[in-house]
């Protein structure tokens, strides 16, 4: 379960943001993306997840291995915590949600509707979703936003278990992830040079 990215150029709204991004994530490794606001972390993650096309470069990974968790958690406000999780488990064909509830300390809240959760509780539920996908490669965009210290530690230990099982994780964050062993990749050095946007017949200059 390796993720290899080479020479990737990615863009938002036609503006190239990052170019020449390259790294490999072997099984069991975690990588943290850093960089100032607006440098393109979210864009990079969405590109790798296949939600938007890259301008150039290649992304090597087995099919159906990636799961993405962005700023929005994909929760239905009127479904309960357990129903939300069970849905994603069913979609991914994995059995049981109890382990995931347990792992993210949500068992007490299982019968609560998602709209009645606090910001941090919602985020915990969003993270629990990762566990029920059964996917080995996690792409996480600021996973610990709104979490208190105990929950950050919880996330750290869950992620560690995932890595120990041969999974990998690629995470963007400005704050502590509770995962000190992760390598850090600073995206500042990959900033795209100013130039005309690609694609439209090289901007027909």
């Amino acid at each position, binding site marked *: 379960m390796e993720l290899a990215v080479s020479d990737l150029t990615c863009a938002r709204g036609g503006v190239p943001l990052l170019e020449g991004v390259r790294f490999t994530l072997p099984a069991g490794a975690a990588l943290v993306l850093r960089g100032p606001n607006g440098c393109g972390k979210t864009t990079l993650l969405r590109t790798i997840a*296949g939600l938007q096309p890259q301008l150039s470069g290649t992304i090597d990974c087995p099919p159906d291995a990636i799961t993405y968790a962005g700023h929005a958690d994909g929760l239905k406000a009127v479904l309960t915590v357990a129903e939300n999780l069970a849905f994603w488990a069913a979609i991914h064909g994995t059995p049981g949600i109890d382990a995931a509830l347990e792992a993210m300390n949500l068992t007490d809240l299982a019968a609560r509707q998602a709209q009645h959760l606090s910001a941090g509780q919602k985020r915990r539920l969003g993270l629990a979703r990762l566990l029920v*996908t059964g996917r080995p490669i996690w792409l996480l965009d600021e996973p610990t936003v709104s979490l208190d210290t105990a929950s950050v530690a919880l996330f750290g230990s869950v992620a560690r278990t995932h890595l120990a099982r041969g999974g990998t994780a690629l995470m963007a964050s400005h704050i502590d992830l509770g995962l000190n062993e992760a390598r850090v990749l600073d995206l500042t050095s990959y900033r795209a040079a100013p130039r005309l946007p690609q694609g439209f017949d090289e901007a027909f200059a």
Partner: protein
Amino acid sequence: MIALLLRDLRLAFRAGGGFGLGLGFFLVLAVLVPLGVGSDPRTLALIAPGILWIGALLACLLSLDRMFALDHEDGSLDLLATAPIPLEGVVAVKALAHWLTTGLPLVLMAPLLGVLLNLPGAAYGWLIMSLLLGTPALSVIGAFGAALTVGLKRGGLLLSILVLPLYIPTLIYGAEVVIRGAQGLDTTTPLLLLAGITAGSAAILPFAAALALRVNLR
């Protein structure tokens, strides 16, 4: 896939999920028309088939405006697009769920409103039959329109304008079945054409809708 269908049905039946609202709209429209048009029974009988079909169509339309929009807003659509089910399947299932929660109840309620509008007795069977054959097409075409406008704030009305012209052939044949049925004429041709439209849209439009969704996600 079945999980998705069940989830959509469950969401529809939960508080604020919108089940029954299509029905309500249909009912209100059937009440408004006599109020606006006047209560002369002959006029009403004349326009009843058309009004019932237009009502069903508008009720469908209004309830589909957020078929994908809600999933887009809360991020589910991103996750579904990376899930191990094809996006075409997602579209088809969502259209099916929409039909089950909107189209089918409309079919069942239409005869009641027919009474309000003085629909001639011979037409009731044809009304149900034509709605049963035609409303699935409305859901599928609507899914296509909803996929085009997902991600647009206030996409609702744009959706109406994109989708209503696409509904026209269904409406014409559907109403024609009822009108002819009411007069005791032969209804085979419009019925067959109606079925053809439904089958054709169900076969092709999920692909177009999935394409539109992918474009909208990026």
